[in-house]
């Protein structure tokens, strides 16, 4: 036990005998309160809805049927594809995608800039980028709403500069939601890209320059391919939470810019909801996210092998 085999990789084995006992609390808590609940949620998505919220324990495909098929008002017409919910999912993907592109456009240069600072000041820059992430997401979204209002500070500022005459209507538009999502998750884009660029060997850039590559060619053909895993990680960290976001679409988008989060939330609010349908919508979102994460982890392990 003690004394033997001191340095075996990252882990040492002082507590090898007790390792399962030490893990027991986390296994118990996480199995009971997240794994089991997700399993029950899956079961719920195949149950019959009860009208006052909740379920009747009878197998039914009604939730998924309602999601994908339109059978007319009385349910007796031939099934057509139901576009309402698919459109909401499609809009969520689209909005999350645009927010990801905005974040990448500003996050990459920021990460690059920070990674090329003096090693002593880098942690300070990183700390500055992380602080806003730890500020309450609700407060950040409310702040964004305050800023973007028709007669809010942004519009008064632009009017003062005489850039615009009439206030811009940004709130309750798609743009407001994209800005909100972008603002919510921007630090997630910067950090993994920063970590990748920090490990980048700049003699590669010198080699490229010696071979007459322009600086932008070097960026495009040398730096970007090398730090690609970091870029993909950043995109996923922004895209995935954006897709299921609730606060930004709800507070900044208004009723017209419904996203997955609001659709799910509505199913569990008061007595009007439909729990099996909400569970099914959650399952579909979870499946999408897990597929993205699986493809990503496969790519990462491939990149590590190469």
């Amino acid at each position, binding site marked *: 036990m003690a004394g033997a*085999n001191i340095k075996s990789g990252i*882990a040492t084995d002082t507590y090898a005998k007790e*390792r399962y006992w030490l*893990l027991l609390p*986390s296994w118990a*808590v996480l199995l009971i309160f997240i794994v089991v*609940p997700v399993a029950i949620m899956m079961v719920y998505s195949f149950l019959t809805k009860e009208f006052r919220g909740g379920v009747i324990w009878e197998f039914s495909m009604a939730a998924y049927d309602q999601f994908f098929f339109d059978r007319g008002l009385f349910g007796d017409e031939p099934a057509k594809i139901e576009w309402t919910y698919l459109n909401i999912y499609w809009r969520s993907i689209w909005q999350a995608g645009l927010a990801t592109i905005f974040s990448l456009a500003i*996050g990459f240069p920021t990460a690059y800039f920070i990674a090329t600072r003096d090693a002593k000041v880098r942690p300070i820059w990183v700390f500055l980028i992380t602080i806003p992430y730890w500020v309450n997401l609700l*407060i950040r979204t409310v702040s964004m709403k305050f800023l973007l209002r028709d007669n809010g500070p942004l519009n008064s500022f632009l009017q003062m500069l005489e850039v615009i005459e009439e206030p811009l209507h940004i709130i309750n538009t798609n743009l407001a939601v994209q800005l909100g999502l972008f603002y919510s998750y921007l630090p997630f884009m910067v950090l993994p890209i920063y970590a990748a660029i920090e490990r980048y060997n700049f003699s590669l850039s010198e080699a490229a320059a010696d071979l007459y590559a322009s600086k932008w060619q070097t960026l495009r053909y040398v730096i970007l391919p090398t730090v690609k895993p970091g870029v993909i990680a950043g995109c996923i960290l922004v895209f995935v939470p954006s897709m299921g976001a609730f606060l930004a679409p709800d507070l900044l988008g208004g009723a017209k810019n419904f996203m997955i989060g609001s659709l799910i939330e509505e199913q569990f609010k008061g007595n009007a909801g439909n729990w099996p349908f909400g569970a099914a919508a959650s399952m579909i979102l979870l499946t999408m996210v897990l597929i993205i994460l699986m493809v990503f982890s496969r790519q990462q392990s491939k990149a590590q092998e190469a």
Partner: protein
Amino acid sequence: MATKNFDLRSYKGFRFLTILCLVILYAPLVIVTIYSFNDSKSITIWEGFSFRWYIDMFSGPESAKFKLAAWNSFVIAIAAATIATTIATLSATSLVRGGMFRTRTLSLGLISLPLMVPEIVTAVATLIFFNTIGFDRGLLTIVIAHIVFCIPFAYLPIAARMQGIEDSYEQAAQDLYASKFQTFTKILMPLMMPGIISGFLLAFIVSLDDFIITNFVKGAGVETLPTAIFGSVKQGIKPNIMAISTALLAVSVMFVTLSYFVSKSEQKD
């Protein structure tokens, strides 16, 4: 900050975009902070500096509601962070000091699971779970739900810290006939303390910040600060909300800064 870089490394416009990035990140927060000191009932017109809305926070018409919500948030965050940090410390001891074993990777995956499942899905699943087992929703259900997503946040700094501690100290203690328990409490724990404090602080903020999961698992009538703020903002942003938000913002920034310096101070010795 006057560092000289190779010209080769720097790209035109990147400095500007970095500044822009910081402006975007901070501008909304700074503006709300400024307007929280506005001596006006309107949120649009600036009528001079005052602490009016901070006084209102303690004695205004809505103060009772928000004070109770703040107390609930505080109690929940302390309970959830304490339990999550304890669980995370034990897990880290097993995963960093337990040698290599078959379920190690699986355990790491399980601990990071709350970070991978979208928050709204966790919220739905937890609500359905408590409903199925017939558990009345209230403070306790919120604490349980918070413990789950606090575990990974507490785990990361603790495990990182423990990986940096050589096990020769433990070996020495055991050679001198210290029991494993004594080795843990007298040697490992004090060395890990910065990581544990940092983990606790992060778990505390994450719990304090949560809205979506709390909104699902809270019972009728139980409010935390974020759910109370959300309910109020639904009817429009009011100046008292800006003062409350600024206060909460200050608490978060304070805790993160504290956590940063705690984890940094120990690197020197």
